[in-house]
């Protein structure tokens, strides 16, 4: 789990709660005129309470929202909206006239595909709740009510459900690709940074190494046996430092050229990055 995923989950759950709140309020303005159906008003109140409760919890945990909590709240919102839609369809059926059922379920399934959190179970679960409840509701409607429904139900709702699942899969894959890209870029930036640190260290070491090799040569020219012996030791140590230099050289390929036309100071560059 990472910050990006957590904030995406927070955004998804909050978007779902806000969309459901707006949709439910709009539906209520129409459905309150329907014949009295037991449970419609109660499900409306329950739905509003669940949406507002979810928004309150998400707001309280906005700094570091756990991804799982956001997904659970998302499903609670979906369940509450589905319950309200169930009673809304009951009200439409009670009119004893031609009606198009499960309109909310179809739209909601597509909306879930577009806003669901990254967790697979939250997205598929949300679509399953809306499409599944529509199919169960269809089975439970008496034959007389089914005769009044729009043609092709529940096939239409099922097709919407399948389309929503396909849309969700495409969206989740796209999100996964994007997160992978972000991760690769972050890794690349870190590698570049490390390579530049190695290079700056090596660059700083090269001038003193050159000086030491010159001084060792000058010591040899003094025609003093002791100095010549010391010079040999210095040269052997220089050889070891050159081997280290070759290792650092391997990091060079990954480094980016630095900008600017004037000289630069490798030591200052290292200090700015907190290297010792």
């Amino acid at each position, binding site marked *: 789990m990472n910050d990006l995923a957590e904030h995406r989950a927070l955004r998804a759950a909050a978007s779902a709660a806000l969309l459901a709140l707006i949709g439910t309020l709009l539906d209520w303005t129409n459905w309150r005129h329907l014949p009295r159906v037991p449970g419609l008003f109660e499900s409306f109140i329950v739905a509003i309470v669940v949406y507002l409760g979810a928004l309150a919890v998400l707001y309280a945990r906005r700094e570091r929202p756990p991804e799982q909590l956001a997904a659970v709240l998302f499903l609670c919102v979906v369940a509450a909206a589905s319950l309200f839609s169930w009673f809304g369809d009951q009200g439409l059926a009670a009119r004893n006239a031609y009606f198009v059922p499960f309109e909310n379920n179809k739209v909601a399934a597509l909306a879930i595909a577009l806003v669901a959190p990254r967790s697979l179970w939250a997205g598929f679960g949300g679509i399953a709740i809306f499409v599944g409840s529509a199919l169960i509701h269809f089975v439970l409607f008496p034959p007389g009510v089914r005769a009044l429904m729009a043609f092709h139900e529940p096939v239409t709702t099922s097709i919407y459900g399948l389309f929503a699942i396909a849309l969700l899969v495409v969206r989740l894959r796209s999100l996964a690709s994007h997160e992978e890209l972000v991760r690769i870029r972050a890794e690349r930036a870190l590698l570049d940074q490390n390579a530049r640190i190695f*290079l700056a260290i*090596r*660059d*700083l*070491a*090269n*001038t*003193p*190494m*050159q*000086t*030491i*090799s*010159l*001084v060792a*040569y*000058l010591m040899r*020219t003094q025609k003093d046996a002791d100095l010549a012996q010391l010079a040999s030791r210095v040269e052997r140590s*220089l050889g070891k430092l*050159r081997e280290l230099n070759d290792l650092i*050289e391997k990091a*060079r*390929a990954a*480094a*980016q*050229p*630095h*900008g*600017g*036309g*004037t*000289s*630069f*100071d*490798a030591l*200052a560059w290292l200090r700015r990055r907190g290297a010792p």
Partner: protein
Amino acid sequence: MPIGVIVLDDDPDLRDSLVDVYSLAGCACFAAASYAELTALPQEALAARLAILDINLGAEAPSGLDAFRWLREKGFGGAIVFLTGHARSERLVDEATRLNSVRLLQKPMSIQALLELLESRVKT
């Protein structure tokens, strides 16, 4: 007549050591720590036949490339060698590799290689 050698490097220890080594080889050295020091004495600088230039001469200071351009502008006819401790991926070093008629050497160079620079000037 001894060969004149310009040593341009902002590191005093390296600059002095290079001067000592080339002086031992019989050269007349002209040492400068910066672009300003080099250009302050044009007659001495332009009399040399070999210029060994460090590329990076300190933060935000004119670089060895600026010194190279100045020498060429003033008609310096000797050989110019860049001696750098920095990687070729650095922008200035990369720019130096694109210049014509110069050599780019990576520190630390062997004494033999440094003295061979001189021998090539004697032959010419």
